[in-house]
């Protein structure tokens, strides 16, 4: 249970800036996901929090205590790695026992032959065994304690790695893409398990992933990182519905948000594909980009039209790919009702509600919009 405070964290490798001043505050008991495309610095940030990598500048406070320059083990954080990083020569039991033995036994008691003969060692080993058995019971790995990591499946190794983290009762858990080595089905299952574990332990979780679905489903807050900067942090719903930056809008959501070219008129109105939207903004006239989520595109009616170039029917839902005009502009619409799919190549009219529109300026920043009362929501199709 801890809050972690990052202030102005900078890191560069060989002259390349990886992190450009990260300020972030992780609350006690939060499940924070750091998401972003590969190379955005999210794993580096996690390693800096863990103490495995020193930052070039900036401070980290854990529970108000500065931890800069303090060894990883002394920070009392636990980490679960993508490759699980279990000791291959040790049994599951011994793997989980390592952090406890390192902490509870003295250097002499840990000696291979002499150690077990020392008087206090027995009692300590009993304590360690009891703790491990409790953890194994909770994680459902009790029957696996004698096996070596090589004899375990991916999901089992994952649990053992979590067990090794839990057994130390750390201030916070750090996860570095722990599910990306699992197959799709198991990943969905482990997602639920980890979220459940977080609810039960009420500990602080910092979770690094490039998979936005993991971030959306598990976290209490998501921090989106791009190019070494933390662009936006908020609850999954906020990040999804209210992206502050076009890169966030494009990264979160699958299929990707549709981006259409637009113009801001002199009077503040917005035109998209030559059609005026019933929206206005205070921004200066010029180019802008308009984003609409696939599920907010209404097929069949609306002022725009395109032709169907591809259909993806997933059973419960379908994605209709539309080509608009000759400029190669593509758009994806989600259809909840798969029984009435448009035919391939057929022209389709479409539109979207004005509250589905997110506008971004050429630099990618969000432009605040307000509804314009004077015009109709949708104009009839011109074609």
């Amino acid at each position, binding site marked *: 249970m801890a809050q972690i405070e990052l202030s102005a964290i900078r890191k560069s490798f060989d002259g390349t800036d990886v992190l450009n001043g990260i300020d972030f505050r992780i609350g006690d008991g939060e499940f924070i996901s750091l998401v972003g495309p590969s190379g955005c610095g999210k794993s580096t940030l996690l*390693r800096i929090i*863990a103490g*495995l990598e020193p930052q070039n500048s900036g401070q980290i406070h854990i529970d108000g205590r500065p931890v800069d320059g303090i*060894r*990883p*083990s*002394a920070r009392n*954080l*636990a*980490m679960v*790695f*993508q*490759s*699980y*990083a*279990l*000791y*291959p*020569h*040790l049994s599951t039991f011994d793997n989980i026992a*390592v*952090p406890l033995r*390192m*902490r509870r036994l003295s250097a002499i008691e840990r000696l291979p032959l002499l150690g077990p003969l020392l008087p206090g060692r027995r009692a300590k080993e009993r304590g360690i065994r009891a703790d491990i058995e409790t953890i194994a019971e909770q994680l459902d790995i009790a029957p696996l304690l004698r096996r070596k990591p090589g004899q375990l499946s991916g999901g089992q190794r994952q649990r053992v790695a979590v067990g*090794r983290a839990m057994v130390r009762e750390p201030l916070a858990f750090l996860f570095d893409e722990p599910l990306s080595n699992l197959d799709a089905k198991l990943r969905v299952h482990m997602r639920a398990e980890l979220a459940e574990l977080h609810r039960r332990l009420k500990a602080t979780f910092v979770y690094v992933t490039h998979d936005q679905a993991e971030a959306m489903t598990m976290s209490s807050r998501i921090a989106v990182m791009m190019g070494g900067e933390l662009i936006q942090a908020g609850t999954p719903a906020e990040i999804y519905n209210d992206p502050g930056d076009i890169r966030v809008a494009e990264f979160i959501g699958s299929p990707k948000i549709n981006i259409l070219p637009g113009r801001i008129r002199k009077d503040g109105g917005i035109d998209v594909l030559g059609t005026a939207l019933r929206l206005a903004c205070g921004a200066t006239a010029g180019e802008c980009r308009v984003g609409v989520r696939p599920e907010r595109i209404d097929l069949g009616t609306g002022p725009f039209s395109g032709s169907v170039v591809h259909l993806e029917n997933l059973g419960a839902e379908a994605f209709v790919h539309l080509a608009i005009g000759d400029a190669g502009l593509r758009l994806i619409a989600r259809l909840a009702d798969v029984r009435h799919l448009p035919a391939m190549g057929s022209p389709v009219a479409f539109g979207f509600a004005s509250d589905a529109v997110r506008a971004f300026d050429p630099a990618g920043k969000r432009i605040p919009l307000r509804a314009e009362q004077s015009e109709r929501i949708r104009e009839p199709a011109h074609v």
Partner: protein
Amino acid sequence: MNNAHPIPVRAILRHFLLIAGAAVMLAPFIWMISTASKPQTEIFSSELHLIPHQFALRDNLREAFAKANLLRFLLNGVIVTVSIFVLQVMVALPAAYALAKLRFLGRETLFALVLFGILIPPQATAIPVFLLLHEAGLLDSYAALVLPFTISVFGIFLMRQFFKTVPDDLVDAARMDGISEFGIVWQVMLPAAIPAVTAFGIFSVVAHWNDYFWPLIVLNSEQLRTPPLAVAHFRNNEAGTSYGPLMAAAMVIIAPLVIAFLFAQRRFIEGITLTGIK
């Protein structure tokens, strides 16, 4: 393969070549066993035969053990090779860990020096090392046999290449668990690197068990002699070379290596392929 002929010509040719090669390799050993089994009279007879008419292996062995303290020499061999190997591992593993997993200024330069060190033949440094041991007053001792070989650049190189393949996550996990850097070397890297250590051990033990050059230079005392010197002992006898006991002694001193090879044949081949690939 030629489809017109049912007889696999190439395979026969291949086997013929392999058999010829094997015969060349094995001939000295067969000759050694043959000579060791013959009485003195048969060894010097003009007619050539491999199977002795009169089997004298026991007599030759008895004479070999009587003439020289063979057991003592074998023990010397064990003491020297084991000490060298243990010390080499104690030096090479931490060095290889630092070169493979730690980031520090000049690491690449140091590694280049290690590679450079592999290129230097031991004979090139023999005289300076000999003088050094002389100054230290260590000539004619176990130390003189062991010390010059404790730092094996080949061992450092081999282990470094192997440690490179150990995932960084494992090292980081150990750091999170509170294991010190030296602890990581012995508790995490060593168990992960057992195949590489075995391969290195085979090379080290074979090289130093068979080493003739260095012990010949630094030793005087008979009781410190290593097995290859022991064989030479028979040759240098003023009474003329007695080939029977000499070959019997040679059989005895190569026996440990042959037996070890037979027991660890798979590991041995693994070791050679390991060094070949990496």
